């Protein structure tokens, strides 16, 4: 086992970047735009697709700040930073519940890094310049194995459908898993390419969107002939990034619930006085801290000791998934009636972290994957 840095590799650069991300979110207040887009839509899940919540100017500013370039290798025009750095930013995105394809784009970045081919490098250059990308790797049954895709590839043409593609309304390009015979290969393609047709799902999480991509004889560039191997190598980074987003969201749920318990008065006292309220809030903190420590540890393991990265990342996502479920549950319960309403931000965070809980597999799935490393 390689020697890991005690501080997770989290130094001044990472703190500066995280701090600027935090200030950016405070400035942008992404939930205000989201609120505007869902105001008065009593039936938001049954009307037309919502697109108003996505602030494209914020994306351009994030590109300007170098966030899409940060994990792109220097030879592809990026900054070549590691996963701990990306995690520091992803945590702030989650804390703000920001509707943005950034986490998906960072995940795609690490998958392309693992692919390592010339074509992968050229797509990484586009990401560095601001092209967003998301993973299109699942089939209809949502099973999590890498060969579960319903897309086929033949002579460089893609056919079939990718399911459960995240951020589909916000995205510029796709990283597609497709079966070429019995082999999984990875392809990159622009969402506007000929033969690509998008259908949007109606999902619970208001900060994200999701959908299906239909491929009809689509010409796509192969970026990895060994798609299963590439996805396997990238999996620790994919899991750690989404766990970091969840860690930030759970911290928000904790702080919001603690603040509410100080001001909401019942039986002549702030409800936080009562131990039936106080103790579960403390339990939210304890679980959140476990997740946060495991996330930074998993990121550092991927960066410095890749041989043990899978175990660390599965533990981090296992923890994040269970923490998310508990924190979402207690936050809504302890806010009482108001937390159950459309108007309150708790519902927005609640839905986002629970959506994330299932992405790349919940706690039970993660523990079963981790068990292979014992």
């Amino acid at each position, binding site marked *: 086992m390689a020697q890991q840095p*005690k*501080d*997770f590799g*989290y*130094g*001044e650069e990472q*703190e500066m970047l*995280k701090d600027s991300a935090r200030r950016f979110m405070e400035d942008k207040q992404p939930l205000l735009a989201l609120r505007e887009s869902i105001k008065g839509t009593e039936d938001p899940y049954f009307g037309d697709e919502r697109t108003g919540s996505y602030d494209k100017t914020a994306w351009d500013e994030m590109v300007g700040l170098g966030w899409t370039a940060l994990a792109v290798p220097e030879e592809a025009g990026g900054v070549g930073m590691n996963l701990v750095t990306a995690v520091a930013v992803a945590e702030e995105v989650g804390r703000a519940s920001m509707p943005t394809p950034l986490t998906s784009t960072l995940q795609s970045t690490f998958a392309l890094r693992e692919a390592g081919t010339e074509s992968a490098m050229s797509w990484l250059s586009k990401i560095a310049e601001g092209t967003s990308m998301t993973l299109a790797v699942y089939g209809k049954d949502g099973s999590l194995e890498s060969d579960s895709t319903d897309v086929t590839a033949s002579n460089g043409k893609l056919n079939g459908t990718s399911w459960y593609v995240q951020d589909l309304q916000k995205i510029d390009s796709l990283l597609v898993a497709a079966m070429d015979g019995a082999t999984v290969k990875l392809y990159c393609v622009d969402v506007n390419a000929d033969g690509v047709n998008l259908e949007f799902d109606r999902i619970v999480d208001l900060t994200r969107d999701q959908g299906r991509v239909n491929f009809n004889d689509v010409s796509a560039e192969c970026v990895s002939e060994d798609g299963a191997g590439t996805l396997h190598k990238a999996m620790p980074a994919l899991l750690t990034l989404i766990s970091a987003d969840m860690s930030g969201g759970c*911290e928000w749920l*904790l702080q919001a619930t*603690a603040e509410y*318990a*100080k001001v909401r008065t019942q039986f002549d*006292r*702030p409800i*936080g*006085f009562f*131990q039936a309220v*106080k*103790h579960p*809030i*403390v*339990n939210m*903190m*304890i679980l959140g*801290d*476990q*997740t*946060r*420590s*495991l996330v*930074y*540890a998993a990121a550092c393991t991927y960066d410095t000791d890749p041989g043990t990265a899978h175990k660390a990342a599965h*533990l981090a996502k*296992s*923890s994040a998934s*269970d923490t998310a479920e508990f924190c979402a549950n207690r936050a809504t319960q302890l806010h009482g009636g108001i937390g159950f309403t459309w108007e309150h931000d708790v519902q927005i965070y609640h839905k986002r972290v629970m959506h994330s809980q299932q992405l790349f597999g919940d*706690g*039970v799935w993660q*523990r*079963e994957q*981790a*068990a292979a490393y*014992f």
Partner: protein
Amino acid sequence: MASPETTEQREFREYCSAWLAEHKPPPTKIPLPQAAYEVTSEDHRTYLVDWQAKCFEAGLIATDVPKEYGGHGHDKFQQIASTEVRRANVPYFINWIGLGMAAPTLLVHGTEEQKKTFLPPIFSGEDIWCQGFSEPGAGSDLVSLQTSAVKDGDNWVVNGSKVWTSLGHFAKWMLLLARTDKNDKYNGITYFISSMEADGVTVQPIHKMTGESGFNEVFLEEVVVPDHYRIDEVGKGWQVAMSTLTNERGAGTGVGAIANSESPFAAIEALIALAKREKRNGRTLWEDPIWRDKLVKLYERTEAATQNFRRLGVKELNGGAMRIPLQGKLTGSELGQELHQTALSMLGMKSSLYISDPNAEEDGRWALGYMNTYTGTISGGSSEIQRNILGERVLGLPKTK
């Protein structure tokens, strides 16, 4: 951001680990109990005091304490020594109350004379200390304690009783909290050093659910305590006690590795090994996905505790100075209890075979250990009190009392 290790620190680390490897004592004839607070036999006491004295001489205890108080006068070396002691799997230090509570309290609140008199024999293990806080009527609600101290010239006369007094049967000194003003709950308590050899002190062992002893009830009848054995001002006892408890809860810096019992990693690894050999229905428990899920979850929590400790070194990621340290005692004790509970469940019909039974798995360590985990979840402020403290001090929730 953790500062990188200096050459001096690295050399000291290497010195500690080499010394420990060379001087690790042979095991006792009758195995030591699982923790220092359960030691009752004279043989064990002699063996452990001898071991602590050697470690002190070697510089592993009181490493950062100034030389005029009997320490070794280094700066920021104690944590290195303590880490190496924990890692070396050597016997625990018997004088854990002296090292973990008395010394840190005296260093902050003691007079020059008190520091010079009491500290050196604490470090060497020559004087064993016990703690006189809890009373039959004052446990979690410690501030309601009733043992009284009445001024009589240059002395105080103490009457009352203390309970759950670990090591009271070996101790020479007690950290005593006594009420000096009945009309002021919080400012009516004073902190004393009280001799366990004084007239009027009776120590009576209490037997635990494990069948072992190790702690006591201590009766104080007209016990005379000289005024120069008072720590800090009259009426300041509660404030001083809170700083002592901070050390007990693992938040203080301490002067030596105190809780040198088995690491949680050793426990979860033993559990997984057990799962790989215990069988039900023709297959090992590890081959059963329900058990795997349970065990990997416990492993995850154990790993999280280690990584929380690592994150302490990166203060930008701590979310406040006390947030992680104040969780240590609570999460560690609850995890330890669940690990043991799980082991008993895995052992099934074998789980009740106890320490004296020849067929008991690993000499009955799981059943014994399970019962003893309640020491962790109850003493030093029960888990319920810990959650109050965390809610109030870290999250700013309204005080329950």
